């Protein structure tokens, strides 16, 4: 019998898993997709919020600022990219300036340091591509960017190193009560467990109901994002926010960690929680808004677009805590600032498990580190030279847009990538301007070679996402 089964391998599930594996427990993480981070987390904007956005007294506020402060150490231990690039919330009228002041006070009350009101001149000096119609801005130095999927891979990778079992591609279909715990049916296989941590994101309400908890509903709120060509690298240095609305933090200009600008997201309720289609209306909404903030950005610069669906609970706040069903902890409705809050939530959920009676003996050989994957393109020339001399597979470029080498792709597969998207999100191969036009066949060959599967078995993201078929399968 497992001590703990975590259902859901997004940022919340993997962060909890990593925290839990500090202790001597038998735990398994169950995920319906074939790789971790492939649900909502993959489409997250990747912002570690400054800490000043959440209204004091909310559960969001309880975890946002503490979570924010944990990312430097996590990034250092787990080798993923994180940079505090700062944020500007922009006001375009005097009325909005009052709201900026209120936001500054709110942040200060929460203990967020360094908040400053910048006047128009300062903004235009620091961010010359912002529209000159800007009136003032609230600067927060604490805001940062990560690649959310990288954090998922690193959390899961580290947790696995410390004994976590991963059950991927195993959707949970039923949960039964057994003496001393539950039987979780995942991908047809029963998993006996004392405790369940429900981190099932959009489907957390369904999972809770399977366990006998019918106290909340999760609805979807879709966000579309548009990635821009590298030509615009450096065009905007800091995250640019409008003033928030109750539904969202608004449409942002996001300088991602890798230097690509991203604009979005929209925020619209969606009936179908699995609806990740982008739309013409969404594209118009994003670009018409962004052009008012940064007039030099245009839809012509778009290289890719995607959508994700946020998990929204009734009441719009997080739901975190033990259920009335004994042994079940719900971590649900984790919308923004959920990524920021994830590490703080993880620590608290582990404490809750202990409160419920799970013995937490520290693991004497816990290894807090995870080796950062090699990023050839980021290395100085001399290091590149040494690396290629040691292993020539790093001397073979596969993705020519992002300069990703064969060695890095092989590393990614050995670290758990099972699909083309898995390689893409681990290495950036296929993420550049040609969007895989040149390299995806080679990545497919490497998957086929490393995993011992045929090309026709290689998928984009698991399930029925096949890429090529045999000549014989076609026609008469």
């Amino acid at each position, binding site marked *: 019998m497992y001590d703990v089964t975590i259902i859901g391998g997004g940022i919340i599930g993997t962060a909890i898993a990593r925290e839990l594996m500090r202790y001597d427990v038998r735990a398994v993480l169950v995920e319906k997709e074939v790789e971790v981070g492939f649900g909502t987390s993959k489409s997250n904007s990747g912002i570690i919020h400054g800490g000043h956005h959440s209204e004091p007294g909310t559960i969001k506020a309880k975890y946002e600022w503490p979570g924010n402060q944990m990312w430097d150490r996590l990034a250092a231990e787990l080798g993923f990219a994180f940079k505090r690039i700062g944020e500007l919330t922009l006001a375009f009228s005097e009325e909005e300036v009052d709201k900026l002041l209120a936001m500054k006070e709110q942040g200060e009350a929460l203990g967020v340091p360094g908040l400053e009101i910048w006047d128009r001149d300062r903004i235009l000096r620091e961010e010359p591509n912002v529209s000159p119609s800007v009136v003032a801005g609230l600067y927060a130095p604490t805001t940062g960017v990560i690649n959310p999927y990288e954090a998922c891979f690193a959390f899961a990778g580290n947790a696995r190193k410390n004994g976590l079992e991963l059950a991927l591609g195993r959707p949970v279909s039923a949960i039964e009560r057994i003496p001393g715990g539950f039987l979780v049916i995942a991908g047809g296989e029963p998993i006996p467990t004392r405790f369940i941590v429900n981190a099932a994101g959009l489907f957390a309400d369904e999972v809770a109901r399977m366990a006998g908890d019918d106290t909340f509903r999760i609805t979807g709120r879709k966000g579309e994002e*548009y*990635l821009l060509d590298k030509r615009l690298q450096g065009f905007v240095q800091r995250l640019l926010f409008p003033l928030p609305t109750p539904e969202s933090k608004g449409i942002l200009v996001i300088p991602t960690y890798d230097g690509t600008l991203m604009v979005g997201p929209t925020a619209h309720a969606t009936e179908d929680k*699995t609806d*990740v*289609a*982008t*739309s*013409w209306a*969404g*594209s118009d909404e994003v670009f018409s808004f962004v052009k008012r903030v940064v007039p030099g950005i245009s*839809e012509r610069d*778009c*290289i*890719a*677009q*995607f959508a994700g669906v946020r998990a929204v609970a009734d009441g719009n706040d997080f739901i975190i805590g033990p259920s009335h069903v004994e042994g079940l902890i719900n971590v649900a409705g984790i919308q923004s600032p959920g990524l920021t809050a994830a590490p703080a939530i993880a620590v608290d959920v582990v404490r809750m498990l202990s409160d419920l009676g799970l013995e937490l003996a520290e693991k004497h050989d816990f290894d807090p580190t995870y080796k950062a994957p090699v990023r050839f393109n980021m290395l100085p*020339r001399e290091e*590149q*030279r040494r690396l*290629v*001399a040691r292993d*020539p*597979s790093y*001397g*073979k*470029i596969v993705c*020519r*847009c992002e*300069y990703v080498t*064969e060695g890095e792709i092989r590393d990614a597969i050995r670290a758990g990538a099972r699909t*083309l998207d898995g390689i893409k999100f681990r290495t950036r191969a296929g993420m550049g*301007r*040609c*969007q*895989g*036009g*040149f390299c*995806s*066949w080679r990545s497919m*060959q490497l998957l086929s070679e490393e995993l011992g599967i045929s*090309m*026709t078995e290689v*998928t*984009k*993201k*698991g*399930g*029925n*996402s*096949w*890429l*090529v*078929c*045999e*000549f014989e*399968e*076609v*026609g*008469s």
Partner: protein
Amino acid sequence: MTTATMPVLKHEAYDVVIVGGGPAGLAAALGAREGGAERILVVDREPEAGGILWQCIHAGFGLHHFKEELTGPEYATRFLRMVEEAGIEIATNSYVLDIAPDRTVTIMSGEGGLREVPAKAVVLAMGARERTRGAIRTAGTRPAGVFTAGLAQKFTNMLGYLPGKRVVILGSGDIGLIMARRLTLEGAEVLGVFEIMPYANGLNRNIVQCLHDFDIPLHLSTTVAEIHGRERVEAVTVAPVDENLRPILDKGWRIECDTLLLAIGLIPENELSQRLNLRLDPVTGGPVVNSAMETSVDGIFACGNVVHIHDLVDFVTQEALLAGRCAGEFARGQRRPKDNIKLVPGRNVRYTVPHSISSEREHTIYMRVREPMERCVLRLGEVYQKRLRYVVPGEMVTLKVKPEFLENFHGDSLLVEVVERGDA
């Protein structure tokens, strides 16, 4: 596949280093030899030079250059043989990471390691890449089964797999047309080619031979408005477009399919050019070049699709021979007199290559028109005009300019335009 070669370069330094061993790079190498260069190196990323020609197994290459109809691999083989006979060195499985302004080329080649090679002249011949879905912001999901036509061609002709069974093609570029026929011949169902513009983008002969001959419908002024399917493509919605080329969604219809191929154009591959801070032409997306095919940086030449997108490989060859010859001369210390006439695109001319000419020499000017026109005149300022039966954006227009045209011309720029006859 991963043949472990050990590409050891023969020399420490070269007269001319050519980046890319496709049709442009191979012809540039021969040109460099003609221009008098001795140590010539072609750097190519693939296990064998020849570029995209290897996957173009259809015929139609060489009609101008060789006066006979060859397949892509035949065309490549002829050039590889000539390059070999000329004793020109090719480094395969090799990748140019960087070119310094002093023309030191950083080359990485797997087992061969990473090294800096000084060159007296460099020719950029990196070719082009295909435009993707992001560039046209097609709405919908992101399932497997959306491929650029060139990638589908690679799967089919090089790797021995098909990209799908029921195929819709967006864009009437030549690769899309060729793939429509190719996949039909292999038993896949090609349900239609959709073109957002009111005219086809590929060569007329490809419309006839690849679509009409196989009863594949071509829908003009229509685009793929939305992609459906979670894991694999399940359907697309196609719709006619309005005058701003936006799909009219309520006039759209759904086509069940498992594959969408994109043949929506090529973009010059200019990562290296950007790193070199070359002056680029925003219309072509490639470097601005003078009549010697030299870019804005001394001793850096460019040719082929990296400069502008060609319709026929024969023209790439022609242009690359010139670029190579000029690079070879440059390497020997010969300097051509500077161009004295700037070419300015006028009515119905998107761009010209080269961007300037000299009144002392003969030139071939390549250009693309903005829109189709029949019974028209190509005018070179007031000095020369030529009647054309028709022009279409899918076919390059070429013009030979002889010094005698310019004998009595004393200006410093010439307007190049295509106008209807009698509309001068």
